[in-house]
């Protein structure tokens, strides 16, 4: 049952591909060549592993959540601790990988898009570490909302470029990064932030994130005499952390659950449930499920977690949904907040709001499973970045209560 996707055209079944202007085709081909060379180069692989280990702190632990497990009375719960990575999320795995690739390809500059700033910070971090110039495209609206992350990128030496097109958010920042890449393709590497975009990006990002899955698998097996977990749960924004952890288990007899942001509830229209509620379409060069109007205009998604706030989803997830290999579920803001609280109280881990979606779903799953089953949650990031949001949320609730 080994997956052989993507095909030579970058397709995962009908999904994926390269729906980009002709002007970028050369760069994508160049990138694919560079990538294939790199991942077949022992030195590159050694450098990458060295940096993941000695700079970012991998392997991240697989933590048994004993109190949470006990509280729920169902399956045993393990947490793959991507929150312990340098800069606080899985994003750095990919940023380091692509930045090293950029260097190997002789590029001097990177550009990146960012929404809330998480990938921007990761990209700026890798750029600083590897001596690359860095420009980060960010919607004007997001810049306003996330001034501290903007400041952080600047501290790291990156230039943050406001994007004023469209809704001035992540999707527009991504459009703009692609546009700018087109005109600077010679010396510039576009460091994309999730398993999205035109081929070969979804493949590249998966490669660099699959360390999550392979580590988790080895760690779990080590703890359980070679057995595999029964289920793996991960949140899905663009889909990079999920595809990364799934990579370790997709060819095994392990149930996989992807969790999208249900926002204020699917029926309200305020959500980012691309797969539950989107239709096939093209976004950022890739054919995938997409939140869009009847006529095909891309819609602005909503989620309390900025990192799940993407109107599309990586094409491999579209394929995994289409083939039913992965079960995709939605979790609302409210459920995610509650799960975040529970994990905090039971295990002393303040996870990212994104990751809290996976936790919330896992709580449901675990309850329905037997105590001799086990599941792994991909804890994609830490919640430091969200404390302000949670605090404001709490204040609001308190004022409603009065």
């Amino acid at each position, binding site marked *: 049952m080994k997956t052989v996707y993507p095909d030579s055209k970058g397709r995962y079944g009908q999904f994926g591909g390269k729906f*980009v202007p*002709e*002007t970028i*085709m050369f760069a994508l081909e160049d990138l694919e060549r560079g990538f294939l060379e790199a991942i077949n180069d022992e030195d590159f692989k050694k450098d990458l592993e060295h940096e993941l280990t000695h700079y970012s702190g991998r392997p991240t632990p697989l933590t048994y959540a004993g109190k949470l497990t006990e509280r729920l009375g169902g399956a045993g719960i393990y947490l793959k601790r991507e929150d312990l990575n340098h800069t606080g999320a899985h994003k750095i795995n990919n940023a380091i990988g692509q930045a090293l690739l950029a260097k190997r390809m002789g590029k001097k500059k990177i550009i990146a898009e960012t929404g809330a700033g998480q990938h921007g910070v990761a990209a700026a971090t890798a750029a600083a570490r590897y001596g690359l110039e860095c420009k980060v495209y960010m919607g004007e609206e997001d810049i306003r909302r996330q001034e501290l992350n903007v400041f952080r990128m600047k501290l790291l030496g990156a230039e943050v470029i406001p994007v004023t097109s469209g809704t001035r958010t992540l999707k*527009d920042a991504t*459009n703009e990064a692609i546009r700018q890449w*087109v005109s600077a393709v010679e010396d510039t590497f576009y460091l994309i932030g999730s398993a999205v975009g035109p081929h070969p990006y979804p493949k590249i990002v998966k490669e660099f994130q699959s360390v999550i899955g392979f580590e988790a698998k080895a760690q779990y097996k080590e703890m359980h005499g070679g057995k595999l977990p029964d289920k793996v749960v991960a949140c899905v924004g663009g889909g990079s952390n999920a595809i990364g952890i799934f990579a370790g288990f997709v060819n095994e007899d392990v149930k996989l659950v992807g969790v999208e942001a249900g926002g204020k509830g699917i029926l309200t229209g305020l959500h980012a449930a691309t797969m539950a509620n989107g239709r096939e379409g*093209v976004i*950022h060069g890739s054919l995938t499920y997409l939140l869009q109007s009847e006529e095909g205009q891309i819609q602005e998604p909503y989620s309390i977690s900025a990192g799940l706030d993407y109107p599309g989803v990586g094409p491999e997830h579209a394929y995994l949904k289409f083939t039913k290999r992965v079960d995709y579920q939605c979790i609302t803001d409210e459920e995610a907040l509650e799960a975040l609280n529970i994990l905090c109280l039971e295990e002393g881990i303040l996870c990212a709001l994104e990751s809290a979606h996976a936790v919330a779903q896992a709580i449901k799953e675990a309850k329905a499973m037997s105590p001799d089953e086990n599941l792994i949650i991909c804890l994609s990031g830490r919640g430091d970045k969200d404390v302000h949001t949670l605090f404001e949320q709490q204040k609001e609730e308190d004022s409603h209560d009065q």
Partner: protein
Amino acid sequence: MTNRMKEFQNLKTPLFVPFITAGDPSLEATVDLALALQNEGASALELGIPYSDPLADGPVIQRASLRALKNGMSLEKAIKLVSDMREKGLTIPVIIFTYYNLLLQLGEQKFFELAAQHDIDGLLVPDMPFEESKELHEACLQHDLSFISLAAPTTSRERLKEIGRTAQGFLYCISSLGVTGTRTSFANDLDRFLENAKASSHVPVLVGFGLSSREQMQQFEGKCDGFIMGSAIVKKIEELGPELVNEETKDKAIAAFSDFLSKVVPVKKVYS
């Protein structure tokens, strides 16, 4: 291929293909602007469909898209608008310029039906490179529509050959890297690129992206068969927008538009 397109291919060069965004500043104005373009010498019209996420377009066309979307423009409405143009005397080929997603959502079948009903001549999908377009290309052939292919200075020799070999209507050669928009300089090795394009192609080779003056076009004299002009025109429309939608100032605005065109169209051809 439609007769209009056949005629287009036989026109005296340089050909001139302007781009406007359907629905900007209004549906009615788009019709008037199309006719003005024909009057001032346009060989064909690229009718842009506004899209929320126009990956290949610069700020000028992005803004036009936003305005047109506010006016409720859609792929279907834009196609239907062409019948209005035809009624008012538009005889040059009309090429629908649309991002792939809009086409996908409308459905190809529906698109071809509408295109036939409303006298459409060609289709250009800016985010559908050669590799992705094979089927659509063929479907267009079957429905007598010219599927316009693009080539860029970075397009490899081999791909350029393939693209040229299968090109319909005309070959759109992108004169510079980057997105649409007016520019002061172009890709370095443009001459060689155009030479190769012309050698590969059996249809007219047009240059576009960033052209904004007659002088710029003169740089390419003899090296291509014509020009595409987008942002410079759309920018002018932006300027005239408020006047174009006001019944009282409309005629004056169209006259100003025509005056502007007369200064940029490479050679004025008169259609009957």
